[in-house]
């Protein structure tokens, strides 16, 4: 579904990604793990068009992503839940969801998609008129995920969904990830909470200082001594 070939990217004079190649197949859940500053967020920003890569090729279902303007990438079926959720704090929950359905194809199905996400997250329906900034952290993550589902995506990018949340809420957020997988979405997730994320994905890539060091089935990485020592504190 999504393929990256030798992607370089960075900010100004600072290079954050070096020749990253990876792929995500339809129906899979894939994680990118690594330490703070390894380039995980940069990778997702490149995929969703927020940051233009300096070299490499990138396709979504065969369509060239690099040639597309950033605001056109969502039309290819890629939806990005950014780091820190980034809801519009002074818009209502429902207006946030409306923004998720901004592209023409999604607008036509707005009522239908709204019913769908409200059925998936009944809590959001209860809070539909509330300003998004007043939601709890877990509810905000729910709203941010729901907003991306409004565009009718095929691939959902999740950037550190557990960041800044209390431990018990973190477990709920990983439950959300399982649920959107069960709904048939392909998922690419970036996480520092390595032990938890390896339980919900099929495969994972380990990113170290902008380069992919290891990749393989999640169970295999979870069993690796190096990864257990370096990233799971065991």
């Amino acid at each position: 579904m999504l393929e990256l070939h030798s992607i370089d990217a960075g900010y100004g004079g600072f290079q954050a990604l070096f020749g990253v190649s990876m792929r995500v197949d339809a129906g899979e859940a894939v994680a990118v793990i690594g330490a703070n500053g390894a380039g995980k967020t940069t990778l997702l920003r490149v995929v969703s068009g927020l940051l233009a890569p300096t070299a490499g090729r990138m396709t979504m279902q065969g369509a060239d992503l690099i040639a597309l303007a950033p605001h056109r990438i969502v039309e290819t079926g890629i939806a990005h839940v950014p780091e820190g959720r980034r809801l519009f704090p002074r818009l209502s929950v429902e207006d946030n969801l409306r923004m998720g359905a901004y592209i023409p194809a999604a607008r036509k199905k707005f009522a239908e998609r709204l019913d769908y996400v409200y059925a998936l997250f009944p809590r959001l329906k209860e809070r539909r008129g509330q300003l998004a900034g007043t939601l709890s952290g877990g509810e905000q993550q729910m709203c941010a995920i729901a907003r991306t589902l409004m565009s009718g995506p095929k691939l959902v990018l999740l950037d550190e969904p557990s960041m800044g949340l209390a431990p018990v809420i973190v477990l709920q957020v990983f439950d959300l990830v399982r649920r959107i997988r069960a709904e048939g979405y392909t998922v690419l997730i970036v996480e520092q909470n390595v032990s938890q994320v390896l339980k919900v994905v099929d495969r994972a890539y380990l990113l170290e200082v902008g380069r992919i060091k290891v990749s393989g089935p999640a169970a295999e990485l979870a069993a690796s001594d190096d990864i257990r020592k370096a990233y799971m504190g065991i």
Partner: protein
Amino acid sequence: MDCQLDIFFVEALVNGLLLAGLLALLALGLNLIFGVIDVVWICYAEVVMVGMYGIHYAHKGGAPFLVAALFGIALTALAGVLLHYLVIRPVLETPPINQLLVTGGVLFFLQAAATMAFGIEFRNVGIRLGSLTVADMSFSWSRILAFLVALGGMLGLWLFLKRTYLGTAIRAIAQDRQIMPLMGVDSRRLYLVTSAIGGGLAGLAATLMVLQYDIYPQIGLQFGPLIFMICVLGGLGNMIGGFIAAFIISQFIAVGSSCFHTEWGYAVAFLFFMVAIFIRPQGLFGGKS
């Protein structure tokens, strides 16, 4: 000082209220632009002036007033788009002082261009709507009309911002511009649309002003500082704050003029403004809403 609760005082209060509608409309356009694009159009009142001349000449050329008004609104909407495209976009990523300087430059350019093109004579559209007399108090219909149309225009904008995708996107981009591409929104196009709306609001205000005021190249100086004062008092970028501030300021002007001399009205309003900003530097109603 002769400040008594007589009919002159009541008349002043009502006239203040009527003035507030127009000032609120003027402040709204400036606040919309600042809230969304983060740029202050120093030349906002000069865009209004362009609209006033446009209406004047269209009307003089034989167009019925309503057609001339629509022409004026279209003209200022176009002026807004050109202002953004030619002047603001090139300096959008540079420090705010540059944006102030370029729009300040446009202010002088428009004043000078208007002086050369139209001369310094005072002009008017020659439409007299007369007055409404209630219990010995007199209110000009042009002011009443301005109040009602301004409220209608603001209501229309509010509905647009609340009920449409484009309006929701305009509110959203004011809160987080960086993630707009993730929503599939083309920010550059949204800025042009916002500039057209901000310009169009200036044209609507111009329509109401040509019925009350003479047109001359420096008319912006009469209104520009007042509009900025209202926007800053309400919290720059805060549309509801600007609306309320317009009513406060115009009451100070109207009642101040009634209690002291006419010229003192503005002084009293500015005095209040200075005290209020000293106490609440962020404006009475804080930041953006």
